[in-house]
């Protein structure tokens, strides 16, 4: 791997961060005729029953100074970029003293948990399944399940989630209807609490696994079909290698590489999809945080979450890109 490639990739990462931060800065200011602080204060005073707006302009001016909105735009932009670079995403408007990054770090483990679990599960299941469907010596029954899996994969995660909630949580009562852990229990690292965590995570994960397994299976099947005519496959067979060895060591191993590429590309989709699953299940992750922020007009949190997610996906893609040559010796970054 060439250093120049790494340098180029690092530059691209910073370009992504800069673009994301700039979009966050520019877009809200383009929305004309809106003053979030004024809206916020008027809403708060109306909630408190204060119909009079005496002194409201002084309050707005004070807040503008506090948020740095009285500075000239270019200076605001530089300050903003410097702050986002340090992951200082400002304070939440609806949970005021809390910082946005604090809210995100509270919610992150939940999202990471179900997204990682369901990605790994659906990737593994789909890959094995797809490989078996394309394998001439595998039972034919398997191929009948493909249309069913594909039907699931054509539907957004959260729509499946709604169906699962109704049948398994509301009708059969096998699983809890929502939340990350039972109300009234205190989160701890005890075994009993971990069990409850897993119990609550099953349905949200299942809706993602059901929806994404079909896609992996189809991709893997396509690769397996192309690989079967290859010379090394004929050679392996002519040598009289056992079936299982040909299947795992020759076919699956080679067919899997494009799958791993797909894994990296699907991450963004998965994170966005997981967000709505969390909203549907009331699961306390980033998605719910975002949904909550949207419903409370908490702009700093909305922009903070989006920025955070774009940057972290950029970082993950960066790492995966650097790992490719290790997984697949055919990929080199040399000119």
């Amino acid at each position, binding site marked *: 791997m060439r250093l120049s490639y790494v340098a180029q990739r690092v530059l*691209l990462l910073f*370009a*992504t961060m800069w*673009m*994301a931060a700039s*979009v*966050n800065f520019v*877009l*809200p200011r*383009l*929305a004309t005729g*809106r003053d979030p602080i004024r809206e916020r204060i008027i809403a708060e005073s109306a909630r408190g029953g204060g119909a009079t707006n005496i002194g409201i302009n002084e309050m707005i001016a004070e807040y503008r100074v506090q948020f740095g909105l009285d500075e000239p735009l270019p200076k605001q932009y530089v300050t903003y970029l410097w702050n986002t670079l340090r992951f200082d995403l400002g304070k939440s408007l609806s949970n005021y003293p809390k910082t946005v990054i604090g809210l995100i770090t509270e919610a992150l483990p939940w999202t990471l948990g179900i997204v990682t679990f369901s990605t790994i599960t659906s990737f593994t299941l789909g890959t094995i399944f797809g490989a078996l*469907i394309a394998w001439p010596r595998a039972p034919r029954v398997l*191929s009948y399940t*493909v*249309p069913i899996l*594909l*039907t699931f994969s*054509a*539907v*957004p995660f*959260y*729509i499946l989630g*709604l*169906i699962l*909630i*109704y049948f398994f*949580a*509301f009708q059969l009562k096998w699983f809890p*209807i*929502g939340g990350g852990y039972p109300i009234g229990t205190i989160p701890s690292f005890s075994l009993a609490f971990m069990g409850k965590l897993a119990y609550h995570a099953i349905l949200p994960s299942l809706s993602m696994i059901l929806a994404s397994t079909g896609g992996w299976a*189809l991709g893997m*099947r396509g690769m397996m*079909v192309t690989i079967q005519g290859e010379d090394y496959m004929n050679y392996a067979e002519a040598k009289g290698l056992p079936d299982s060895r040909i299947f795992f060591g020759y076919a699956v191993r080679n067919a899997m590489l494009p799958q791993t590429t797909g894994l990296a*590309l699907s991450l*963004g*989709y998965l*994170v*966005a999809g997981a*967000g*709505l699953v969390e*909203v*549907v299940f009331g699961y306390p992750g980033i998605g719910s945080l*975002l*949904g909550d922020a*949207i*419903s409370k007009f908490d*702009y700093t949190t*909305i*922009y903070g979450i*989006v920025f955070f*997610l*774009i940057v972290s*996906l*950029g970082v993950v*893609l960066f790492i995966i890109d650097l790992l490719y040559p290790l997984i697949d010796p055919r990929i080199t970054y040399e000119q």
Partner: protein
Amino acid sequence: MSGFLKYLRRNPSLGVGIFMFALLVVFVGIGYMKYDISKAAYPLSAPANKPPSLQYPLGTDSQGRELYAVMTAGTILTLRIGFTAGLIGLIIGTVLGFVAAYFRGWVDVLIKSLVDILLTIPGLLVLVIIAAATRQAMNINLLALIIASLAWMGPTRNIRAQVLSLRERPFLQAARLSGMNSFEIIFLELMPNLLPYLAASLVGSVTGGIFASLGLEALGLGAMREPTLGMTIYWVIYYSALLKGMWWWALAPVTVIVVIFVGLFSIGAGLDELANPRTRRVV
């Protein structure tokens, strides 16, 4: 007609897709005859929380909408958003893809790297920011435009690849030698060859458009007053309809959405087969 039916036997997924959409047309048609959509699809037009019955075939929601009327209006609105966004995205993508692949050089490098960068950013998240910034003025057309603004990268990439492979074929060399100019070559030689491919990609971008619109609406960033499918999902979540046992409220939009997506998916697979019969399909 009989030839087409015979073709459908060879291409069952196209048949399944067409059947799904025929179902939707019948469903929406009956809804149109039965209801005055401009009233019944909006709040306070029916008693709230009624389960399905002869009078209210799909039940009513907590805000007093007739769900059948909502579904009639919502299917059309949601398809319209998806179609507008998908079509605009495809047109932009086709133009950019053509320009990049046909003229090559620095234009190609520029377009290709822009697409590569934007494809790594999860589009739905950027749409969340745009929609959050414009939510006060949100309506159906604005939503479609917002979605279209990030729907062109996939088509650009695909069309570029297709044109790149077409431009080396002998018939294009013959066209060039016979003295056709770039304009004639693009519209008389390349376009007709791309049409089936464009049709297949339109289905893909419409699916993407509907997907994005449902996502934004379910998050609460849609046009709040419009009875689209995504807004119905939003109200289902907002009012915790399932926890109150109001299964019919979720059943209607979920079924319609599943039928739309499975239909689009099958039509897409069928058109792929039509555009490129060499691809082997399982469905």
